[in-house]
């Protein structure tokens, strides 16, 4: 069936405007700004110094913040996209209109994605401007790359949350699944991998762990930021354990993009 742009644009515009109107976008941008500024400024306090350091050092500090915060915000944003309509009783009405289910998912996703991207860019952009003022415009290239990857991470988790929203039977169930996914991807996944590594010792084929890391969008984000910038990589000192084929930021970026497209594709397929 042909895909029409108008219903997608209409749905996306409504979702975006809703988030502007209920001040979600500005509130989340404020949270991002506050945390990003605090970490950029006080991140080195343990070493006895405060103030902005180099761009790559700042990015290295912010990566951890983004990994905790952005997935959580994205999951909370999207988990009721479909199940909320279902529970309110407005889903049959939407589906009775001349729009396809794919268009409904795509429109909702794009609107929410725009709101999330706007908050992320506005929130982390403030630190970017400060870095630009301090270290000159040349420093901004790296930071822009970091922000783009942060947006991609958000979009990946938004995609996961829309999938949750399609398969969940109720809003409460969806919020539970969203929280479990956050714990799973952000906290447990690395622990389990570490446990695997310790338990199996040297029996794992070389490159297995880095490959498994790419199966988690949060780790793919971490890797793209580590390997994207040589200085950051040195700060982490991890480069040695990752084979060159997986150390490419393009491979890691592709993993992130896959994490945007695949859950959304499954959501669209399941929503029938």
């Amino acid at each position, binding site marked *: 069936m042909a895909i029409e742009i108008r219903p997608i644009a209409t749905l996306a515009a409504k979702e975006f405007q*809703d988030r502007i109107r209920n001040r979600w976008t500005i509130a989340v941008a404020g949270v991002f700004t506050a945390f990003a500024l605090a970490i950029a400024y006080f991140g080195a306090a343990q070493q006895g110094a405060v103030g902005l350091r180099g761009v790559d050092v700042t990015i290295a500090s912010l990566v951890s913040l983004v990994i905790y915060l952005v997935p959580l915000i994205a999951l909370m944003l999207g988990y009721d996209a479909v199940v909320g309509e279902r529970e309110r009783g*407005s889903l049959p009405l939407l589906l009775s209109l001349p729009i396809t289910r794919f268009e409904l998912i795509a429109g909702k996703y794009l609107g929410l994605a725009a709101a999330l991207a706007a908050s992320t860019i506005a929130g982390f952009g403030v630190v970017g401007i400060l870095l630009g003022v301090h270290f000159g415009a040349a420093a901004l290239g790296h930071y822009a790359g970091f922000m783009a990857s942060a947006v991609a991470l958000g979009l990946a988790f938004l995609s996961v949350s829309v999938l949750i929203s399609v398969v969940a039977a109720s809003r409460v169930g969806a919020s539970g699944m969203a929280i479990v996914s956050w714990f799973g991807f952000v906290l447990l996944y690395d622990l389990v991998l570490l446990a695997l590594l310790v338990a199996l010792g040297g029996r794992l084929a070389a490159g297995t762990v880095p490959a498994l890391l790419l199966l988690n969008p949060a780790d793919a984000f971490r890797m793209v930021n580590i390997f994207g910038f040589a200085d950051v990589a040195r700060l982490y000192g991890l480069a040695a354990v990752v084979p060159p084929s997986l150390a490419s930021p393009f491979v890691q970026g592709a993993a992130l993009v896959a994490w945007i497209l695949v859950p959304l594709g499954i959501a669209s397929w399941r929503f029938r």
Partner: protein
Amino acid sequence: MNPNVIEIRGVARHFGDVRAVDGVTLTIARGEALGLIGHNGAGKTTLFKLMLGLERPTAGTIEIEGESVHGPRFRDVRRRIGFMPESASLYPNLTGLETLRFFARLKGADAAQCPRLLERVGLAPAAGRAVKHYSKGMAQRLLFAQALLGSPRLLFLDEPTHGLDPAAVRDFYDLLREMRADGVTVVLTSHVLAEVEQRVDRLALMSGGKLQASGTVQSLRDALDLPLAFEVRLNGAAEGELASALGPLAMEPPQMRGPHATFRCARGGKLAVLAALATLGGRLADISIKEPTLEDVFLGYRRAH
């Protein structure tokens, strides 16, 4: 041109062991108003969802305007359909006008007609108010206005008067009459049987997922041969005389409440009963005859099947 707008053939929808809709065959003609009547859980809403292509039938086919509701060309048919779901809550932060414009854009209808539609359903004064401040009745009106977007040729109204006060119910049916005068086909569900009785051309009675009967109110009454109820007012104590005048014409001895006596007789015995009552002369003050209500018809079908 095919006179039937909707053709439902042998449609079933099962959820596990539950047969929500079970072998329904029904056609609805262009310009007709059909009332789908049944108690909660009878399968009306599921049948609606099947007709709108929102659920896939376990068996059978449904065509609207000659197109399968799951076919690729049904999208165009949807533009000519207005659907009012049962008690859907809309987006609380949008105003009535914004809500209507949103649905107009999704439907590909002219958004310029939105203020006029709000006026038609009596919501013009509340057009700029957020929907979260609407009463239940106002929200129902907004849903109805939404169904009228794009001048639909076919209206599906699921319990449209649910939660409306009596004046609003009357307004609703006035508006529906205007739509019908333009040739719009209407399918509406209700569990308030008496309400739709006089307002549709044909009734379809549903129970347990099955279509029990369909036809005009009169044909359903006739088919069941339900008894008529008489109520008479007597002058003075004349119970004994009433009972003896009626004899076996009354299906049971008259029930007395003060000067009022009620009894039932077979449909064919109406004139004989009137003749018997005439013998009471001045001891009879008043007579009224009640046709079986739709509720009686419905219960009659339930008992008969």
